[in-house]
Structure formats: structure tokens, C-alpha cells
């Protein structure tokens, strides 16, 4: 047979079956559309939340240190083509109003931020006048927080002395995207241009300057590229000490958890949509080929070799899959465009709708790949069609040789694994998915086999009275009924839909639960003990709630277990390179204040972290019971009356090298005292409450010199009044607002969770649609059976009973096994991949089983409806 004849045969094969062909192509298209639409929506959601996350860092990644950044940084960044860099320097300094006579007027501690060209790379600053920061900041201009104007009695246009330089205030700034650490800032914000720093003379020895380089990667860069650059920079900067590299994904603990979970979720969605699409395709191809069995037998009879038959149908599947995939891409894209328009407010705001040729091509290839791979088992079934079928319809299929079986198995496994890796972009997730699929398929196939065996064992007489019941049972066990493949397909569908539902609802619930709902919106620092009643009164009068205050004692750590900290610090510096602090857990000690922790400031990175942790001034508090967001992991709180006890935060304890039983020597303004570590605890930093590394038992520090740190929720819009009243009565009290950052985090987290709910729901609906099509396709060949039953005198009602019984049983088995497997999958994904606690709710499981039964019965009846309506002779003739 030459190529032209081959092509002719492919074309001829499609003749005379237009209806079935259209149905087949439509089923393929729906399968592919599901995969494409989910991929597109995932990409959009991913892009949205990443965009938000980048704003919180104002960059893709940042490199930060306490000394000037090394010159080789430029070449490292330049290793990524198109990457841009700008620098930011921050320091705390005192600025003064310049009075008319030229002498310095009132002064104020401020946080000075000198920014380079292009800052911020992501997000916007709210300034007055609303112009780009670069145009407001000339060589000698400053843009300041409005409260600085109030405190110093200045206005826009006034002059301000910063160090040795004089600046003109050209505007005010009320919001900056990357100022997360407002809570622990030490004063109002002042912006100047990076080039103006030398003129202030502030960069000399002894001043604490934070140097930061912001990097913007070219548009369209992946997270993997950002991570790769972070790793390269980490490695290169490690020997140079005390530099910290972070990407936008790590900028904030609440967000980091959310992003991480969203990422896992999107991978799950991609994999599950792939699976459901594949199942749909496999069932459709199986049904299609079932209708071609006679033709295949004739072709073989006439001398067509099995491999030629296979080639013919593979080529046909490729053509149809191509058409189906193209349609699927169009449909999938249409869904992406239509869905946000239809659902509007339910969706994360500003979900971008992308129409990228690359994405479409990817969808097309993915569609053809899925179609080919999942249709492989039914296609290979064409090899097994015996030519003797032309003589006897029930001729035994030709068995596969062991070699073919092994080859088929390997190709299937390899193919599924490859597709899974492509979809999830992770080798390990791909492997997990492949393993889970094999396991679930095996469980379903085994249960199908057991059910058939069990029904086969039932003596016919004892199978019940109704004819529908008896025939329905018999239909499941007759040879070639396709019971196993139908149960596997439907069961896998149930796995997908139920797992999706469980993961989606529990994950979204957890994300919403994690939101700092009761978090304070403002912190008040440096309150003297005698001022506290007055401050409290101001807060209460103006409607503040959730007011909380703790004492703060500043102390210096002098020795651990008798060994002076200077010695410990030196020993640690010597053993370079120092161990990098762990980055995995929320609130690890490598976090610094910009990440939104309250009560403690953490700085530095790499080996410098420990030194800093040891030698800086420590903030101690004392309390009888720990806040709810603390969890003791070692020891028992205040359990030894004979000792002065202290409780350490776990990561801090590791940083300073202390453990349960360590003796810590402190010095408070010259007064030494010793504390013993009796508990180690973890802190949920993302709760935004007041938390300390060091908590001392009551009765030790009460007489030490101390201040108070207070937190409260201020009424929306009432902040300015409180600020003004406090400034008037207690000028040394600084109020720091966190509403802004809380709102931002809240927004991002709600977007993630609503995106997850939406995408989950969409996948579930697409899954149900595909499954209904697949069950329908596999029952479409039952016309002859319907006709025969009617011929021998069964009423339509009776025939429907037979079918309903058969499909209900099939749905029941698939539903029960699928629900069990779906539950296990959801549990594994939630607890192992996403660190979300598992709650068992029975309702979705019941709904899954009932739904599977209902879907199977409806699809089965719908598919036989045509044959039920026709006269039997038509159906018999048509065969």
C-alpha cells in the first residue's frame, strides 16, 4: 500500500460516520479546551498574584547588606540578559527645619531613603503632586511624609536640612509599595535622590546604612529564572559576607505561604485537568474504535497488516486530535475571555487575559499529545481485532505478546510522566502524579474485576426478582462489556472532581483563616510607663479597639553559659562560611522587619545574622502567659520557682546557639542578671501580633527601666485625629500605622483564595462535562442491544430499567472507589504539599458517590434514547 493509498484510506475512514465523527471531535475538543482553559486561567492568576507580590518588593529580587554592595554584583546581574538594576540606600537620621534666619529649627528622627533611577520597578508611590518620583527628586529636592511637615511646621517648598545638605521639599509621599516595615520604622519617611547622598555627608563611618540593589528581570521571566539568579547571587556573595538576597516570592511570610500554596494548587489543577482530559479522550477513542471493529476485521481479512491498521487509525487520530485540539484551543481561549466577563466580581480583580501564540501552540501540542497518549491503549486494541470476526462476531481477540505489553506500559508511563512534568514543571510532582494515577487506576481496575467476579458468582436465580435488575447485573459481567474501562474512567473522574473540591475549599478556607483579621492597625512605641494611662485614654476616646500593651526592657546579652558573646561571635565569624539560616519556615530569623514582624527587628544575612543576633541590643518583655500565636515546642512555661526563667523563639535560639537549660547573662543599664532558658517556642509571625524573641517570667524585670509597646486597631479614617492628639500630648510617642500593608496582604490573599475557588470550580465543571461525554460515548453502541430487547418484547420502560441498573451499579463502584482515592489524594496534597490541616467533611464524599451514580445513569439513558425511540428493525438493520 503506497502513501497515496494510505492517505486515501484515512480520508475514506471518515466517510459515512459524520455524526459520530463530529461527536468524537467535539469530545476531544472539550477535553483539550479544559486543559487549555485551565492552563490559561492558571497563568493569568499566577501572573496577577506575582504582580502583586513583586510590588511588595518593588522588584523581582533584591540584594541587601550593611556595607556597600560589591562591584562584581553588576556583572552577576548582567548574566541575565535584559535585567535592570537600581539602588536604594536607607538610614535613620535626624532632619531639621531650616528657619528663615538660616539657623536650624525643630528636628525629627526620620527614615531616609535615597533611591536611584527607575525606582520602584513595580507598584506606584502615592505622591502629592502625583508625578513620578524621579521628576520630583532633583539633585537637591526631597519628598517627605505629610506628618513630617506637621511635626516640623513645614510645607511643600520649605527647606529641610539633612546632614550637611539643604534640600527643598518638592512634594509629599503617603504610600510606597515596598514599605512593609512601617510598623517598626523609627520615624517619618524622607526620599532623596541617590546622587544627593554624598552631599549630606551621612555616609561616613559609624552610621548604619542599609544598601539595597533592586533587580528587575525582563518581562515574561519565570519564577525559576528568578530563583536561579538568587541562587547564583547567594553563592557568589557568600564569601563576601553579610549580604542577603531575596526574591519577591519570599518577601513576606503570609504571602510567601500563600504563593507557595497557590503554586502547588495550580500545579495540581494543571495535572488534574490533564488527567480528566486524557480520560475523556481515551473513552471517546475507545467508543469510536468500537464502532470500527467490523471494518478493521474486513481490512485484516483482505490482507492489511496489523501495523498498517494501527498506522491508519493513529494517523486518523492525529488528524482528528489536531482538529479537536485547534477547536479546543479556540474554545479554551473563549472560556478564558468569557468567564471573567461573566463572573466579574467573583474573580480576582484585573485578571489579565492573555492571548499568546506560544500559549496557543503549547495548548495545541498538549492537546495532540494528550489525545495520542491516552488513545494509545484503545488504538492498540485495533491490533487485537481478530480477522475471524468476519465469520464470528465473538471471535477471540488476538493476545498481546509480553514484549508488546511491556512496551505499551513503558510508553504510557513515560508519556504520562513527561506530560505531567511539562504541566507541573516539577520532576517530583510529575513522578507523584504518575504514581498516584497508576495506583488509582489499579485500585479501580481491581475493584471492577472483583465486582464482576462477585456478580458472576451470584447464582442467577438469587439475583433478585426484577428483570431489569437481573439483566442489568448480567450486562456488567458479559464478555466485552467494557465494564472495567468504564469504571476506571468514571472513577478517575470522581477522583479528580472530589480531590479538586476538597483541596480547593480547604485551601481557600485556610488562606482566609490565615489572614490577620484581628491584627492591630497601629503600633505605638517609646511610651513611658507614666504616659500609658494618658495614651490609653486618647485611644479609647477615639474608638480604638483591641488595645494591647507590653513592657519592653532594653538589655544587652553579655554571655551564654558563662562564655562572653564577643568570644562566641568571633569564633563564629572564624568558622566561615557560616551556615546559612534556614529559609523554609515562616518567620525564620533571617526575616527582617520589612516582612511585617512586630516587636522584633531582624537584620543581616548569612553568617552576619548570628553575630548581629548576639551583639545587638535585645528587647525583653515579661508576661505570665504567652500570646495565642506562640506555641511551646520544648520545656514547660515558668515551671521552676527557684530560677529566673526566659523563653526563646526557636530560630533566635538557634541563631545565638542557645538551647534548653542555657544560662543567659544580661546587662540592663549596668545592672547584670542571669536567666535560664526553660522553654523554646515558635511564633506565628504572620498573625501580626506583638511578639518577642525573649520573654521573661514575671517578677524579674518589673523594677528595670522600661517603656511600653502598644498595639491597637484604629477606626478607619480616625488615624489622623489620634496621631494629632498623641503628637500634641506625648511628643515622644511614635505611632506607626500598618493598615496599609495589612490591606495589601489581605487583598493579595483574598485574590489567591478566590482565584483558587474559581479555578477549582471551573475544573470541576469541565471535568463533569468531559465525563458525561465520555460515558455517553461509551454507551452509544448499545442501539443493537436495545433493539434486541425490544424485539423480544421488552417495553421501553423495561429496557430503561436494565440500562439504569447497569449504569447505576457502574457509577456506584466508580463513585465509592473514586471517592476513597480522591480523599486520599486531597489529604496527601493538603497535608504533605501545602501544610494545610485536614478536616474530614462527609458531604462532598456523599455528593461524589451520588453524583457518579446519577451521571452514569443519565449519560447511559441519554445515549440509548435514540435507539429507544426507533423501531427495533431500524436498529437491527443498521448494524
Amino acid at each position, binding site marked *: 500500500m*503506497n502513501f497515496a493509498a494510505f492517505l486515501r484510506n484515512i480520508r475514506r475512514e471518515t*466517510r*459515512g460516520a459524520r455524526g459520530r465523527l463530529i461527536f468524537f471531535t467535539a469530545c476531544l475538543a472539550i477535553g483539550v479546551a479544559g486543559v487549555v482553559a485551565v492552563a490559561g486561567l492558571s497563568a493569568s492568576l499566577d501572573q496577577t498574584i506575582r504582580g502583586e507580590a513583586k510590588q511588595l518588593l518593588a522588584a523581582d529580587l533584591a540584594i541587601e547588606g550593611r556595607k556597600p554592595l560589591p562591584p562584581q554584583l553588576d556583572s552577576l546581574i548582567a548574566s541575565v540578559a535584559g535585567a535592570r538594576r537600581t539602588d536604594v540606600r536607607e538610614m535613620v537620621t535626624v532632619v531639621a527645619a531650616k528657619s528663615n534666619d538660616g539657623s536650624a529649627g525643630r528636628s525629627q528622627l526620620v527614615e531616609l531613603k535615597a533611591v536611584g533611577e527607575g525606582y520602584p520597578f513595580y507598584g506606584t508611590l502615592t505622591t502629592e503632586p502625583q508625578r513620578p518620583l524621579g521628576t520630583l527628586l532633583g539633585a537637591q529636592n526631597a519628598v517627605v511624609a505629610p506628618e513630617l511637615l506637621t511635626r516640623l511646621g513645614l510645607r511643600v517648598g520649605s527647606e529641610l536640612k539633612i546632614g550637611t545638605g539643604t534640600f527643598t521639599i518638592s512634594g509629599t509621599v503617603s504610600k510606597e509599595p515596598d514599605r512593609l516595615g512601617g510598623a517598626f520604622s523609627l520615624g517619618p519617611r524622607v526620599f532623596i535622590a541617590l546622587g544627593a547622598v554624598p552631599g549630606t555627608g551621612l555616609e561616613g563611618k559609624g552610621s548604619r546604612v542599609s544598601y539595597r540593589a533592586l533587580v528587575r528581570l525582563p518581562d515574561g521571566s519565570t519564577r525559576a529564572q528568578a530563583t536561579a539568579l538568587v541562587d547564583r547571587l547567594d553563592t557568589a556573595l557568600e564569601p563576601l559576607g553579610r549580604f542577603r538576597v531575596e526574591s519577591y516570592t519570599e518577601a513576606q511570610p503570609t504571602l510567601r505561604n500563600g504563593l507557595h500554596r497557590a503554586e502547588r494548587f495550580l500545579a495540581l489543577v494543571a495535572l488534574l485537568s490533564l488527567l480528566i482530559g486524557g480520560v475523556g479522550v481515551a473513552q471517546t477513542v475507545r467508543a469510536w474504535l468500537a464502532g470500527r471493529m467490523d*471494518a478493521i476485521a*474486513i481490512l485484516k481479512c483482505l*490482507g492489511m*497488516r*496489523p501495523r498498517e491498521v494501527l498506522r491508519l487509525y493513529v494517523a486518523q487520530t492525529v488528524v482528528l486530535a489536531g482538529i479537536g485540539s485547534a477547536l479546543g484551543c479556540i474554545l479554551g481561549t473563549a472560556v478564558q475571555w468569557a468567564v471573567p466577563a461573566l463572573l466579574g466580581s467573583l474573580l480576582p480583580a484585573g485578571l489579565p487575559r492573555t492571548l499568546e501564540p506560544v500559549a496557543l501552540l503549547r495548548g495545541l501540542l498538549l492537546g495532540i499529545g494528550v489525545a495520542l497518549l491516552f488513545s494509545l491503549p484503545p488504538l492498540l486494541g485495533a491490533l487485537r481485532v481478530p*480477522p475471524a470476526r468476519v*465469520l464470528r462476531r465473538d471471535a477471540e481477540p488476538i493476545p498481546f505478546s509480553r514484549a508488546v505489553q511491556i512496551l505499551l506500559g513503558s510508553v504510557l508511563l513515560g508519556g504520562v510522566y513527561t506530560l505531567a512534568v511539562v504541566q507541573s514543571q516539577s520532576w517530583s510532582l510529575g513522578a507523584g502524579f504518575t504514581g498516584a494515577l497508576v495506583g488509582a487506576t489499579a485500585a479501580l481496575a481491581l475493584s471492577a474485576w472483583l465486582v464482576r467476579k462477585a456478580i458472576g458468582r451470584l447464582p442467577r436465580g438469587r439475583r433478585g426478582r426484577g428483570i431489569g435488575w437481573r439483566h442489568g447485573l448480567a450486562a456488567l459481567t458479559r464478555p466485552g462489556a467494557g465494564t472495567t474501562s468504564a469504571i476506571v474512567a468514571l472513577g478517575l473522574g470522581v477522583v479528580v472532581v472530589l480531590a479538586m473540591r476538597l483541596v480547593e475549599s480547604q485551601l481557600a478556607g485556610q488562606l482566609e483563616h490565615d489572614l490577620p483579621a484581628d491584627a492591630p492597625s497601629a503600633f505605638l512605641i517609646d511610651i513611658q510607663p507614666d504616659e500609658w494611662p494618658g495614651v490609653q485614654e486618647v485611644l479609647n476616646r477615639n474608638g480604638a479597639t483591641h488595645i494591647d500593651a507590653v513592657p519592653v526592657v532594653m538589655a544587652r546579652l553579655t554571655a551564654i553559659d558563662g562564655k562572653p558573646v564577643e568570644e562566641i561571635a568571633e569564633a563564629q565569624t572564624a568558622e566561615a562560611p557560616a551556615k546559612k539560616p534556614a529559609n523554609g519556615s515562616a518567620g525564620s530569623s533571617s526575616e527582617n522587619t520589612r516582612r511585617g514582624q512586630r516587636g522584633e527587628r531582624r537584620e543581616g544575612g548569612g553568617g552576619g545574622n548570628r553575630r548581629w543576633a548576639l551583639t545587638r541590643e535585645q528587647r525583653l518583655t515579661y508576661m505570665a502567659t504567652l500570646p495565642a500565636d506562640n506555641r511551646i515546642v520544648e520545656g514547660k512555661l515558668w515551671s521552676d520557682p527557684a530560677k529566673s526563667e526566659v523563653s526563646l523563639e526557636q530560630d533566635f535560639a538557634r541563631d545565638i546557639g542557645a538551647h534548653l537549660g542555657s544560662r543567659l547573662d544580661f546587662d540592663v543599664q549596668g545592672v547584670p542578671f542571669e536567666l535560664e532558658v526553660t522553654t523554646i517556642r515558635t511564633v506565628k509571625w504572620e498573625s501580626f501580633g506583638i511578639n518577642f524573641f525573649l520573654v521573661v517570667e514575671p517578677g524579674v524585670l518589673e523594677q528595670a527601666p522600661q517603656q511600653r509597646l502598644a498595639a491597637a486597631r484604629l477606626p478607619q479614617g480616625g488615624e489622623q485625629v489620634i496621631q494629632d492628639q498623641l503628637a500634641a500630648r506625648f511628643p515622644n510617642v511614635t505611632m506607626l500605622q500598618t493598615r496599609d500593608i495589612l490591606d495589601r496582604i489581605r487583598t493579595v490573599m483574598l485574590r489567591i483564595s478566590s482565584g483558587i475557588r474559581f479555578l477549582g470550580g471551573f475544573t470541576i465543571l469541565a471535568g463533569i462535562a468531559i465525563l458525561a461525554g465520555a460515558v455517553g460515548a461509551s454507551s452509544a453502541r448499545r442501539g443493537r442491544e436495545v433493539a434486541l430487547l425490544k424485539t423480544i418484547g421488552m417495553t421501553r420502560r423495561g429496557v430503561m430499567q436494565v440500562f439504569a441498573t447497569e449504569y447505576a451499579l457502574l457509577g456506584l463502584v466508580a463513585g465509592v472507589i473514586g471517592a476513597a482515592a480522591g480523599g486520599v489524594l486531597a489529604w496527601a496534597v493538603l497535608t504533605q504539599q501545602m501544610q494545610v490541616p485536614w478536616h474530614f467533611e462527609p458531604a462532598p464524599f456523599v455528593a461524589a458517590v451520588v453524583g457518579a451514580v446519577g451521571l452514569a445513569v443519565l449519560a447511559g439513558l441519554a445515549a440509548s434514547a435514540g435507539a429507544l425511540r426507533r423501531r427495533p428493525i431500524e436498529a437491527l438493520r443498521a448494524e
Partner: protein
Amino acid sequence: MIQESMRTNPPPDPAAVEFALETRALTKRMPSGGKPLTILDQVTLSIPRGEFVAILGPSGSGKSTLLALLAGLDRPTSGEVRLDGEAIQDLSEDELALLRRRKVGFVFQSFQLLSNLTAQENILLPMELLGVSDGEARADELLALVGLSERGHHYPSQLSGGEQQRVALARAFAPRPAILFADEPTGNLDSATGERVLQLLTDLHRRDGTTLVLVTHDPAVAALAERRVHLRDGHIARDERGDSTLTASKQ
């Protein structure tokens, strides 16, 4: 396409082979519930080239099974089948397909035309498989021979049963097979139409010198053959020769 490379052993010299088909101790068992059911039991049979043999027997006697085994559509449980001198029981599916393509034609009770091909395309198909690219003339010639010149572009569903079987006949003879198997070719036809089909079948057999193996349960049909092999319960019950065309056609 490389077809010859499929051969495991060189074909015997056709001149040296006396028999188109030979079987030795041919046995076929099938699993039936628990114990295997013997359908054919130790059947030994030789069919010379060009002979017209009818295989007769009641339903369940093993006629169709014997035909499937002779034509390489199925595999025996034990015993040997030689087609044109070549032992075929151990050939692979691919080798069997090539053998059928080159040497065997079929006519079935239920016609077995491909419903998605026109009458002409159905006739062309075996020739296409053989790599004959200009088979149209022969297809048209055969269509004329079976009296369906005008119906070449019709699909099987647009043809009557008799017409379909005539197309099937033309398809079977199109590649000039050495052996033609016919399984109850008139079983689905009324007697007049059946007679016409049988006439065509015997004419074509005579014209091309094709070995013809016809399976039937109808003694009248079998009477047309030069030799009648009676099967009963998987055994050859009687093997008779002699032309009874005259008496059979009168019946």
C-alpha cells in the same frame, strides 16, 4: 512497501506443489466455561489446485472454523495447514496478512463490504493493498462482469443484498487470488439472487482457474461443486467426488 522481507522461508516452487490446501491432524479447541470444547478433531484434507470443494455440514459441525483455519484467519490448537505448499499455522499476524493479500479471496454470508467505501472502492481496496495503482480498469471490468457497471459509485447501504454480494464477488476476484473462500455466500439472499451469485462464482472460478472452497449447509448449493466434504461434530464424515451440477440445478 517491502513485503517480501516478511517471509521467513522462501516460497516453494508453485509447479512442484500439487495441492492448493493441505491439512494434517488439524484440531481446534475452544474454552467454553470450564472445559475446552473440541470444534475440529484431527482433520486431514488435501485440496488440489483449481478444485471446487464444498464443505457441508449442519450448524455447529465446524465448517466455518475449518474455513477460518484454512484461510489463516484463525490459528489451530494443533496440527498443520499448508497453503500453496507453505505451512501457515506458525506465521505471525503480519505474515498471515501478507499471505491473504497475495493469495486469498473471500466471500461472506453477510457480504462484509466496507460501508464507508463505494462499490468500486471496495473492489479496488485489495488491489491497492497489493500496490496496484491502476486497478480502476479491472474494477470496472469486474463491475461489468457482475452486472453492476452503473452502480460503481454507490455505497453498500444503497445496494440490495444481491448487489452487495456481487460487489463482494468482484472484490474477491479482483487481485486474481489463487484460492477463494466462500462462507455461505447465498445464505442471506433469496433463491433467484442466490442462483445468480453462484453462477458468477463458478464462472469466475472456471475462468481464472481459482481454487474454490465453499462452505454451506445447503446440499443444493454443494451439488455445484466437484467435491463435497461432509463435516459432523468436527470430523470428516464423508468425502465424495463427482459432478452433480445437472441434478442440483434442477432441484
